């Protein structure tokens, strides 16, 4: 399975797309496949602050509930509200329409700890 090389990754199977001081976060195609059919994504509202490594939400598939972790510290500036009605988008288009939140980073150095696509693939 190939992972987009322009993204960064976490060991918790999330991807991070950097755009200036803001990052977009979603789950990888590996995680989506492993979770099975996704039926619910529980996210905080925009404006909440998160610390790197904290749980910011949960994702539920027909078989499990798993935590979502903040890959960086900062303020949540957007959440993908479309997932309320169509959570299955996370599984169908994990790197596109299935994005979950956008975070305005408080410390860009948090990015240093993230994995490249090769390093992420090597860990699976």
């Amino acid at each position, binding site marked *: 399975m190939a992972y987009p090389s322009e993204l960064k990754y976490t060991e918790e199977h999330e991807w991070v797309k950097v755009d200036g001081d803001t990052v977009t976060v979603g789950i990888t195609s590996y995680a989506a496949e492993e979770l099975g059919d996704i039926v619910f994504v529980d996210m905080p509202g925009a404006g909440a602050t998160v610390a790197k490594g904290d749980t910011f939400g949960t994702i*539920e598939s027909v*078989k499990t509930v798993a935590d979502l972790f903040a890959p960086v510290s900062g303020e949540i500036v957007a959440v993908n509200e479309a997932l309320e009605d169509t959570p299955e988008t996370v599984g169908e288009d994990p790197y596109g329409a299935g994005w979950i939140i956008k975070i305005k980073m408080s410390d860009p150095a948090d990015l240093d700890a993230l994995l490249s696509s090769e390093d992420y693939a090597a860990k699976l």
Partner: protein
Amino acid sequence: MASLSSGPVRPFEPTIASWRLLRSGAMTGPENMACDQAILEAAIAAVAEGSPPEVTLRLYAWEPPAVSLGYHQKAEDVDRDRLRRRGIEVVRRPTGGRAIFHARELTYAVVGPLSLFGRRVGVLESYRLLSAAILAGLEERLGVRAELSRGKAPKGPIDRSPVACFQRPAQCDAVAGGKKVVGSAQVRRGECFLQHGSIPLEPREMEEREALLGRDAPAIDSLGSLAEAAGRPIHWQEAAEALILGFTHTLGVNLVEGELCPREREVMESLLTKVTVR
């Protein structure tokens, strides 16, 4: 690599070979859900503190019968007023999935660190690995041949309408004779997991339909039971022994009878009202 020993081929070699066995017997709905969650929280705390991780197999029953809802399931999915009038409590599970009416069943819970599997495993794979032990036990002890459902939802919008867990077998639910006999769900938090599952001992379709969907709803066709699958009555104790046999034989683990530790009891007490859905 194929096993050279004469024992059963193991689905995996658990990294922890001695597990705690809790035969909790019958408890109320809030007690059962608070108990499973307390064990999970203790496991998470142990891993975070760097203590040796423990694995627990808990076997239990529900008295009086109760309804459990999946973690994200809407409380309005069931008629709580009607259930309350009938003395049926509604509780929330820490795991996903749909509603279950728990009556005359064996429920199992396995709690432990994800490192138990010895490698990184996805949700569905961990279901398969743990279910292999359960299915082997059911067959060896009770003669019930069940298999894992392979059903995967078609592409496109997911049908989120089923209210009841047993309305439809999901991937990796155990099915015998086309009917679901083990309905399982899992939660992963931090480096730990909790998987629990409901195994109906005898037919309860009418009660389950009435409790979850209403008397006039269509029958829950895919709800099975061990008694139907075995063609004879199966008591809780016998089903419990089947699971114990499955885990010890198939995974080669040593189950040591134990009890909740004081910290788990304390957490359980504190969660009793939290897990109850009003």
